């Protein structure tokens, strides 16, 4: 018998290399796990992510109670993930993988839930052309409209309950912007370097909103004028062609709301002037707010309605903050198309001598000196240049002498126009419906207010969370004494 030593040796070598390859195959995983695992503990733990613009979860305090509730271990997992080694690189890689999942024709992409075209006849906003004829029958049934309706579409409520009160301890020197808080979370459409929040809308919510605004019309004495302004958002003018159907008509919704307002509420038509200038830079491409210029046009519409004159845009001293990547940049998981097309914020110096004061959340007993414009705002918070963000109350006193005193009830969309409007009044009280704890009737009566403006973006005017806040301003009471800046 002849033994083939050569073949035996070859087999042996094969077995060896087979073993080496298998060891390598396991070892590569072990190396990754151990190296990253050790670095995750050893590297300094960041507390804030500049890239994601948010505070990172920190290791929770241990207590038996939180352990038994499962909160402790969950907290450890969150903190571990937030302070993970090379976190920023991994997050960028995740965004890349997400964008590589398919094709984007002309950059068209969709994120999150899309407001469907409702077929629920009860909740469908009638087209503008039908509004006037329907008006009489609608207003007769308006008794039941002030019922917050939780059954309507999910895009209305998902973010409201989880209101992530961002670390709200704001000092006067820090611009704050509550971003999406309390805003509707509709889907986002990304197209040619701009992101659009899609509008769903709800007939029931719009009716509720109009009913609440009408309550304002009846709440004050005859000397107080009440105005309402509902502002269309970017998708209304930005989506054209076949993508137009992604978002429902905001004009229909605004017209429907206005059709239900009583005659003692003055309707401010911001829509027409914005439409007229819709090819200008009136909305941000990476943020859900409008620009100072857009707010300026709305301001002119309001001043017309209030019978006051307004400044020419050319007359302002202007500044620019750039680059600005806003909330929609975050909402699209930091889409490359937006990163390549950042916004800038142009802001105008407040044109008249003023004293401005602001209040921190849950504390109307103390105010601090502040300013109308906050030029140091930067980065993701650049929209915070207007009023410094969302404070429960901002009081602006000017050297204007026309006997007019104004209250503005707003969410963040109102911040930018307030910085123009206030220059036309002796005193302006900017109330954030989400954070102001005081009673609005008291405010109007005690401060000798002559004008009340309720200003909302169209999505907020269709969101029960906001409407309920605006409604309760009329009835809620503040537990302590509210301090007002005198003189």
């Amino acid at each position: 018998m002849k033994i083939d030593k050569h073949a035996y040796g070859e087999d042996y070598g094969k077995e060896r290399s087979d073993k080496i390859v298998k060891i390598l195959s396991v070892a590569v995983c072990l190396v990754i796990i151990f190296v990253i695992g050790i670095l995750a503990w050893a590297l300094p733990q960041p507390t804030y992510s500049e890239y994601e613009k948010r505070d990172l979860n920190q290791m929770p305090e241990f207590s038996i109670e939180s352990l038994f509730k499962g909160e402790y271990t969950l907290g450890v997992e969150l903190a571990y993930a937030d302070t993970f080694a090379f976190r920023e690189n991994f997050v960028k890689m995740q965004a890349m993988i997400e964008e590589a999942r398919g094709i984007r024709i002309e950059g068209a992409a969709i994120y999150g839930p899309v407001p469907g075209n409702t077929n629920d006849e009860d909740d469908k906003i009638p087209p503008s052309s039908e509004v006037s004829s329907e008006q009489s029958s609608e207003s007769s049934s308006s008794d039941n409209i002030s019922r917050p309706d939780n059954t309507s579409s999910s895009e209305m409520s998902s973010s409201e309950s989880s209101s992530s009160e961002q670390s709200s301890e704001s000092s006067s020197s820090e611009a704050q912007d509550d971003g999406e808080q309390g805003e509707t979370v509709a889907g986002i459409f990304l197209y040619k370097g701009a992101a659009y929040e899609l509008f769903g809308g709800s007939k029931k919510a719009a009716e509720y909103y109009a009913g609440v605004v009408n309550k304002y019309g009846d709440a004050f004495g005859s000397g107080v004028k009440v105005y309402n302004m509902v502002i269309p958002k970017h998708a209304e003018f930005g989506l054209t062609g076949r993508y137009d159907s992604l978002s429902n008509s905001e004009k229909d919704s605004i017209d429907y709301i206005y059709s239900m307002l009583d005659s003692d509420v003055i309707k401010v038509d911001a829509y027409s002037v914005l439409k007229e200038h819709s090819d200008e830079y009136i909305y941000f491409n990476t943020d859900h707010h409008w620009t100072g210029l857009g707010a300026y046009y709305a301001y002119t519409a309001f001043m017309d309605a209030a019978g006051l004159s307004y400044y020419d845009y050319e007359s302002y001293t202007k500044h620019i903050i750039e680059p600005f990547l806003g909330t929609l940049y975050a909402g699209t998981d930091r889409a490359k198309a937006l990163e390549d097309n950042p916004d800038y914020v142009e802001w105008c110096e407040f044109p008249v001598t003023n004293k401005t004061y602001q209040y921190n959340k849950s504390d109307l007993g103390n105010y601090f000196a502040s300013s109308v414009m906050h030029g140091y705002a930067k980065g993701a918070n650049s929209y915070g240049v207007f009023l410094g963000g969302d404070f429960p109350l901002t009081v602006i006193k000017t050297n204007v002498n026309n006997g007019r005193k104004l209250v503005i009830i707003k969410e963040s969309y109102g911040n930018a126009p307030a910085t123009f409007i206030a220059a036309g009044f002796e005193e302006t009280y900017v109330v954030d419906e989400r954070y102001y704890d005081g009673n609005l009737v008291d405010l109007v009566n005690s401060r000798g207010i002559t004008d009340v403006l309720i200003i909302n973006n169209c999505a907020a005017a269709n969101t029960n969370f906001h409407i309920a806040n605006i409604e309760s301003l009329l009835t809620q009471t503040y537990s302590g004494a509210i301090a007002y800046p005198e003189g």
Partner: protein
Amino acid sequence: MVFANLFFLYAFLPLNLILYFSTKNRAFRNAVLIFFSLFFYAWGEPVWVTLLIFSATIDYFHGLIIEKYRGKIGAKLALISSLVLNLGLLGIFKYSGFFVENINLLTGLDLPVPAFSLPIGISFYTFQTLSYTIDVYRDEVKPQHSYMKFFMYVSLYSQLVAGPIVRYADVAIEVDERHENLEDIYSGTARFLVGLTKKVFIANVAGQFAETYLMGDLTKQSTAAVWFGVLMFSIQIYYDFSGYSDMAIGLGKIFGFHFLENFNYPYIARSATEFWRRWHMSLGGFFRDYVYIPLGGNRKHQYLNLFIVWFLTGFWHGASWNFIIWGLWFGVLIIIEKLFLLKWLKKLPVISNIYLLFIAVMGWVMFYFEDMGRMFDCFAVMFGAKGTGFWDISLELTLLNNIFWIILAVAFCMPIVPSVKKFIENHPKVQMPAKILQIPANAVMLIVNTSLLVGMSYNPFLYYKF
């Protein structure tokens, strides 16, 4: 704790591996597994880890008592005690709320509804210990005399929270004597990473789409959009569940255990009967061996037996009527198939595939919606009864934006991997290159999944109801 989690992958697992492989001492290795398993479980259930210990302890003694009193009344009593205690645990923690609610509904009473939070994995580990006691009673397996070893079998974290249901008889030898080796560690690692990829890269993404299209007001969605949502849920639950089983099997291999397969490409089945031989096989086997056959199997009142088994299968998935409906849906289909349909299906290759996919997807609608009203809305929109229109542009964008991913997700529902493996087996020349390719493939899977876990907030655990 769950596997698809950074803390597990980069803190728990490496520590577990270091300690486990730091010595060859069997008792020490077993102790390490027990310690890490208890930690793993207590991490998510710091209170109800006591139930796990209780269930394991009583059945350890049940096994010993049955052995001691074999053939006598004592053995029978121990078996009954095991059934009562294990099913009692399930009854109290999983079903009591459901029962009281329905009693209230039927009688108009207002009994207080117990609100236990369902301990994770209780349906899996109570079935494991039950199977042990029954198998010992039937003298199919010898009882384990070492409490430590028995406890290790019950608590082993790899299959503790999401299956498969590992029967003691299948791992009895390895509990006593197992040989961890390079081959197993190598293939176990790859298997674990494949499971992780199925969970993180496919299931989580599909789940996000399912939620987007199914969670909101269905009557506002187009027919195609709701179909897409339902198909995405079908993708999600398959990849999630089978991914977990892959990870369990892979981890088991690393530690020297060989669990039976739990999924075998269920969506290529050609009948409901075949689907359940490919889907969650360890559960089907459990009900077959411990319920269906003892009831008489196909020898007496077969249809009643089938009805009971499928009622229980549905009910096992959650204490809610929709799961019962889902189980009975398959029960009825399987009975119809037994009566005549199966013969036809065998002769109709493509049509039988479409038939199975259709009934499986319809089943997932029943499974997804606990709210009957929403379930009917979903069916209504799917079949155009709500007049919501067939197509919408946002769905078109979603499809385009994810087209490569969708192709991958659908393709890997089919047995591509086994075919490739077979090809490699039959072609010795590509064996070495294939193994070398496994090295970067492992690294890529680990890194990609890590980045998705870091960047994505959506990572649900589907088995809280089981």
